[in-house]
């Protein structure tokens, strides 16, 4: 655990696996896009709009996964004060917000032709919208303080409190009478049951894999960037301390 908490060690590992993640991401996209758009069949009811599902479900999956990652990292940061955990949470938040927005927008673009409306105020859509506001609040809060450490901690507490929303989003379609279709995958003793035909499931899995790898590849880049920002801040602070030391004592 502490090996990964050390930034230098962590970045060494992260940089080493970065080319593999990035390569895998490219391969998955190269497979997913043509299969999703051209080679997979249309749905028996929804026709070609089922192709929106590949983007929509992948984005929704990522917005949930990233929130989980942010919450877990926030907990590690608050309890053990691992600086890397904080940076990982900070670096993930804008991506989570992006995927959340993408899930909402593609959901609307799918809902209008299929359900007959862009938006309904049901549990799934409302709680996803709340998740989007949580992402925005997290980003705004972490940048709202002169003392960046204070922002990090406040945002981490917010992330932990907000994680109560994630199970609500997940279970909302089962608890509630809603327009939104139930989950397409359910874990059971036989493995994972899915109500999606394999020919439609393949592009979905490929796209989800591609999105996930995209997130992890970008996370490495963003971690590098956040770490540099911290180093720059430290360097500046040491310059100020140097100035203070150079001045005569009062």
């Amino acid at each position: 655990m502490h090996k990964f908490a050390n930034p230098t060690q962590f970045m060494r590992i992260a940089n080493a696996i970065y080319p593999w993640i990035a390569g895998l991401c490219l391969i998955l996209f190269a497979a997913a896009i043509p299969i999703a758009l051209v080679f997979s069949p249309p749905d028996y009811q929804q026709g070609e709009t089922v192709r929106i599902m590949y983007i929509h479900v992948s984005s929704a999956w990522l917005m949930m996964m990233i929130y989980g990652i942010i919450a877990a990292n926030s907990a590690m940061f608050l309890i053990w004060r691992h600086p890397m955990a904080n940076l990982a949470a900070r670096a993930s938040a804008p991506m989570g917000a992006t995927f959340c927005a993408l899930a909402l927008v593609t959901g609307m673009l799918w809902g209008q032709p299929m359900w007959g409306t862009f938006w309904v105020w049901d549990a799934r859509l409302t709680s996803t919208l709340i998740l989007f506001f949580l992402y925005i609040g997290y980003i705004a809060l972490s940048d709202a303080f002169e003392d960046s450490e204070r922002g990090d901690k406040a945002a981490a507490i917010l992330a932990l409190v907000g994680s109560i929303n994630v199970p609500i989003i997940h279970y909302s379609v089962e608890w509630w009478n809603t327009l939104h279709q139930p989950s397409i995958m359910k874990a059971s003793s036989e493995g994972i049951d899915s109500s999606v035909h394999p020919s439609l499931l393949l592009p979905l899995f490929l796209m989800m894999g591609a999105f996930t790898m995209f997130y992890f590849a970008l996370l490495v880049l963003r971690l590098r960037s956040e770490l540099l920002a911290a180093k720059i801040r430290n360097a500046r602070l040491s310059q100020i301390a140097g100035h203070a030391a150079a001045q005569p004592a009062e």
Partner: protein
Amino acid sequence: MVFAGLGFELAAGGAMVLRGPNGSGKTTLLRLMAGLARPVAGRLLWSNAPVEDPEALARRLRFIGHQDAIKTAFTVRENLAFWAAFWGTGEPALIDRAMDTFGLAALADFPARLLSAGQRHRLALARLIASPVPLWLLDEPANALDDRSTGALTNTIAEHRARGGMVVLASHGADLVTGGTTLALDNFTPTAAQQWVEL
């Protein structure tokens, strides 16, 4: 990083004066000792045992900082009485003594909003007597005080130590204690090389 490699101890009846230029970490050290901040590295001991219960530590100490923590809508007496009730220490007699000591008795029923900066600071210091505890952490306690009040504070600290109390105070002005140790914090300022933390 504000300071590094710092270590000291304080016995019953002891006093320590923290000295150093602005930004050398006097306030930070006092807040660390109060349990309001956590050190990146290092630990705090009470009677040679690590402090594992910050609340129990808080019950044994009083921290008087730059801000006076006074509610201006309340009178002088109400301010003192609230803190005495809040901390569960002190009796009404002590509140009267506290006001006498710091020359606030005549103002007891005045709303605190009418007080001057110096009087407000005296009201903050009066909590030391109204709600007694063994360890006093005082951040520049003589700021905004006139000579007479400074004298009163010096006497109060001496009496507190005579009864076995301890005082840590940050100061760059007059000596408020006799025979205490002095800690010059600028000796512990990290070097530029230590500051340049290669994350």
